[in-house]
C-alpha cells in the first residue's frame, strides 16, 4: 500500500471534520439520548439474539447507524422507534449469518448462583421465559417484546417492524398465545 501525500492528508483532514458534521445530532444531545435508550436497546438486542456478546456489538453498530442516518426525527419517540428499527434490522442481518460460539443467555443465567429462594425463583422464571422465547419465531419475539416489555403502541410496533398497523393486533394475539402455550408446556 502506498503512502499518502501531504495534499491527500490535508484533504482527508477536512473529510474528517466533515465526518463529525455528518452525524445527525451533536455530542450532548447524543449523550442524553443514549443514557435514556442504551439499556432498553441492549435488553432488546440481548433477548432477540439470545446472546449478550452479540448484543454488545450490535448496540455500538445500532447507534453508529443512527448517527449516520440522514432521517430527520420530529420527536425523541420517533428517534427511539427508528433506533429499534435499526436494532431489528441488525438482528435480522445477524440471523442470516452463521452463528459462531454464541453464549446463550439461558445457559449463562442457569449457571448463575442464586443466593436466595426468591432470587432462585426469579432466575427460574427468567430461564423458562428465555427458553420459551427461543422457541418462538423471531417476528413473534419482536412483537411480544416491543408490546409488553418496551410498551410500544401498535403504530410504533408497525413502524419498527415495517408491518401494517392494522395487522399488529392479530399478530400480537397469535404471538401471545404461542408464548403462553410454550410456557404452559414447559411447566407441565
Amino acid at each position: 500500500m502506498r503512502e499518502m501525500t501531504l495534499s491527500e492528508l490535508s484533504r482527508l483532514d477536512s473529510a474528517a471534520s466533515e465526518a463529525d458534521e455528518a452525524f445527525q445530532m451533536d455530542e450532548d444531545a447524543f449523550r442524553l439520548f443514549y443514557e435514556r435508550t442504551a439499556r432498553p436497546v441492549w435488553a432488546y438486542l440481548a433477548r432477540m439474539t439470545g446472546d449478550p456478546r452479540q448484543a454488545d456489538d450490535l448496540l455500538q453498530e445500532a447507534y453508529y447507524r443512527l448517527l449516520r442516518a440522514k432521517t430527520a426525527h420530529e420527536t425523541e419517540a420517533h428517534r427511539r422507534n427508528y433506533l429499534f428499527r435499526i436494532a431489528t434490522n441488525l438482528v435480522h442481518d445477524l440471523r442470516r449469518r452463521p452463528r459462531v460460539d454464541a453464549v446463550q443467555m439461558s445457559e449463562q443465567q442457569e449457571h448463575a448462583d442464586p443466593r436466595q429462594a426468591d432470587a432462585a425463583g426469579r432466575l427460574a422464571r427468567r430461564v423458562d421465559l428465555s427458553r420459551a422465547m427461543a422457541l418462538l419465531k423471531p417476528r413473534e419475539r419482536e412483537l411480544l417484546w416491543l408490546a409488553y416489555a418496551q410498551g410500544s403502541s401498535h403504530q410504533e410496533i408497525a413502524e419498527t417492524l415495517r408491518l401494517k398497523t392494522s395487522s399488529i393486533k392479530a399478530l400480537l394475539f397469535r404471538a401471545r398465545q404461542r408464548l403462553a402455550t410454550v410456557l404452559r408446556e414447559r411447566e407441565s
Partner: protein
Amino acid sequence: MNGHTIGQSVCPREQEIVDLVVSGRWRDDGDDGLGPHAAQCDACAETLELARLLQDERKALCEEAPVPSAGAVWWRATIRARAEAARTAGQPITLLQGIAAATALGLFAGLAGAVWRSVAAGGAWFDRFDDLVLRSAAAPTTLILPLLLALAACLSVAPLAVYLATADEP
C-alpha cells in the same frame, strides 16, 4: 402461568392492562376495576401474566446490561466516521492516478510504435522528415504557430500532470 386457559379472543381492555404494567402503575386492587376484570377474563389474565413476565425480564436485563459509556460510543463512532470519510476521500485520488497512468502508458506505446515504424523503414525516415519540413514550410504560417504552441504545451503539461497526480509533495 397461573392455570388460566388460553384466551381465544381479544379483550378491548388488554391495552389498558399493558399500559398500566409497563408504566409500573398496575395494582390488583386498583380503583379502575381492572384487577377483578383480569381475574375473570382469560385474555386479560394471559396478557397480564405475560406483560408482567416480560416487564420483569426487561428490568433485569436493563440492570445487568453492560453498556459502554455514551462518550465511548460517541468516540468510536467518530473514529469510524473519520475512517470512512478518509476512504471515500481517497477514492478520487486513486481514480485520477489510474487515468494518468493509463494516459502515460498509451502515449508511450504510441510513440514507441511510431519510432518502430520509422526505424523499420530505414533510410526512408530521413526522406520523410525532409518531406515534412518542406510541407511545413509550405503551410501557412498562421497554422504553424498554433500547432507548435499546442505541441509545446502538450509536451510540458503532460509530464507535469503525471507528476502532480503521482508524486509526493515536498
